């Protein structure tokens, strides 16, 4: 199920402002890749370019190639909707649909695809909630609104919602930054599990988290304020954290700036 992603010389713009310059990197299947770097360096922007969420902002555009198993997701004949269907996303703030029950939130994506069979939907809901380590906590109140859960539970609900449609890749933009330490641990455990099935890209500015959950780490930085962000280095997490090749990476990791 999992697929690989390759970026080739990707430039990303908001109108005339270039936010990201010349990113080239590869994300192997069934791995966790962490994006780290000071805020404003374009981590979220790159992440959102990976499932064509970037172009939702008026005037925003992407240049270069983003390949999913060798196919350019920006090719003219590719429908952004099917790209997003294939590459799921979890956001910084948990965003369950407030008017839907927990169960309906999980199967929202399937329902869009026209799945109506109640048995199938129930099955998928259970499986996804189990997959998101949430089943035991909510199995007795599946019909309660999604907003009735705690922040950490809501975020796991959003993860369940994202994996219910069985995407190839799962993008996560600082999924724990709005959560308490215990919920954060729960999600980190979950990520380690999800890796078996999905290719995962996670933005975090928590270095320990990157070190704990990821296989490879990409460090982004700005040359100067107002300049576009760029990829400074990417490599095995262990290596990037122990012996980074770039001085900037070392400075950032050791907390000397940012």
């Amino acid at each position, binding site marked *: 199920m999992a697929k690989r992603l390759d970026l080739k010389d990707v430039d990303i713009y908001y109108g005339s402002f270039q936010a990201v310059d010349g990113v080239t990197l590869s994300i192997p299947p069934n791995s966790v890749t962490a994006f780290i770097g000071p805020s404003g360096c374009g981590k979220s922007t790159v992440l959102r370019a990976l499932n064509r969420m970037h172009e*939702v902002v008026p005037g925003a555009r992407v240049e270069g190639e983003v390949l999913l198993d060798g196919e350019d997701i920006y090719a003219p004949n590719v429908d952004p909707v099917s790209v997003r269907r294939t590459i799921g996303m979890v956001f910084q703030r948990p*965003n369950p*649909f407030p008017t839907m029950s927990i169960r309906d939130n999980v199967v*929202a994506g399937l329902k869009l695809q026209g799945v109506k069979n109640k048995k199938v939907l129930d099955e998928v809901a259970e499986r996804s909630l189990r997959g998101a380590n949430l089943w035991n906590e909510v199995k007795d109140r599946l019909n309660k609104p999604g907003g009735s859960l705690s922040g950490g539970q809501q975020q796991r609900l959003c993860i369940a*919602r994202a994996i219910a449609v069985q995407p190839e890749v799962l993008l996560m933009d600082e999924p724990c930054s709005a959560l308490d330490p215990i919920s954060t641990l729960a999600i980190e455990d979950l990520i380690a599990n999800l890796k078996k099935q999905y290719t995962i890209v996670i933005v975090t500015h928590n270095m320990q988290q990157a070190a704990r959950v990821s296989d490879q780490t990409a460090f982004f930085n700005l040359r100067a304020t107002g300049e576009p962000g760029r990829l400074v280095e990417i490599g095995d997490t262990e290596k990037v954290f122990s012996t980074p090749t770039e001085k900037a990476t070392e400075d950032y990791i050791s907390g000397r700036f940012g």
Partner: protein
Amino acid sequence: MTDLPVTGGPAGAGDTGVVRGLPVTATIPEGHVRMPDTGPPPAPPPDEPAGATSSRRGDRLFRWLVTGSGAFVVALIGAIGLFLLVQAIPSVLVDQDNFLLSRNFDTEDPANLRFGILDLLLVTVEVSVFALVLAMPVGLGIALFLTQYAPPRLARPFGYLIDVLAAVPSIIFGLWGILVLAPVLEPVAGWLQAHLGGFFLFAPGNSGIAGATVFTAGIVLAVMILPIITSITREVFERTPRTHVEAALALGATRWEVIRIAVLPFGRSGYISASMLGLGRALGETIALTIILAGVQTPFSGSLFDGGATFASKIALSFAELNNDLSAGAYIAAGLVLFVLTFAVNALARAVIARSGAVA
């Protein structure tokens, strides 16, 4: 299937809140404490600065002035209500017919008043509901078009276009309706009567003048309430939390599906209350209906092709001729019923909005 422009923030404060009937306080940015008086103000007005008795007197005077004007408005409306009742009750008491159930409205002879509101009520409700049924889907469509489909650069000018519709005086809509639109609608009306005439709504009506019908009036009214429905609905849709829109997009929702699972659930109560405000406006519309609806002698049959009079048009048509208080009282009584009706509809609209909390 291109992408959904997620519009930035809510529209500027400048173009909100001026539609008559808008449910109050449309755009209050969060985070501003309402008023210094609600809690202990961090820096209270200095009450005792050295030798500042004059400023304290100024304060007291000003407080008295503004509080007085608040009280004045309350007293004024209260008094008006009282006076209206005082005018209406004697006429209703000497009414030879049942005020609620009679279909007559005969006030020629003050010594023998025969009037009831049934026909007025039926015509008013039918023409307004017909207008609402036409305007609701179109208004929803426009609000969606302006917030979700129109290119961001054009959304604003397009929005102004709809607002211009609100600025055209009703009398002009009325004239256009009867002189220009009604003849164009005649074939449609004829077709409906010929093919669906079995159903009471489309049965041939009693209006002696071509096009001077509830049908024409309802269509014109629909155009007139469209801007009310659109402007409020649009404002609510614009506030759909971006996070919900993005959540839907990230699941692989098409633009329409984003609307269905994020925009509509969020904006539904705003849309409903906007529509009810539109209904309130339709119920009380006067001059356009006065111009369009033909006066008739026979009772209202329920057909869209009837003429007749609404509360407002009846009052407008007859009131200037009145020369005695008892006859006037009959119309004032009808006016009070209209007032209660619009008030109930507007209050309901406000309640819907307040309960949902979707709009600040």
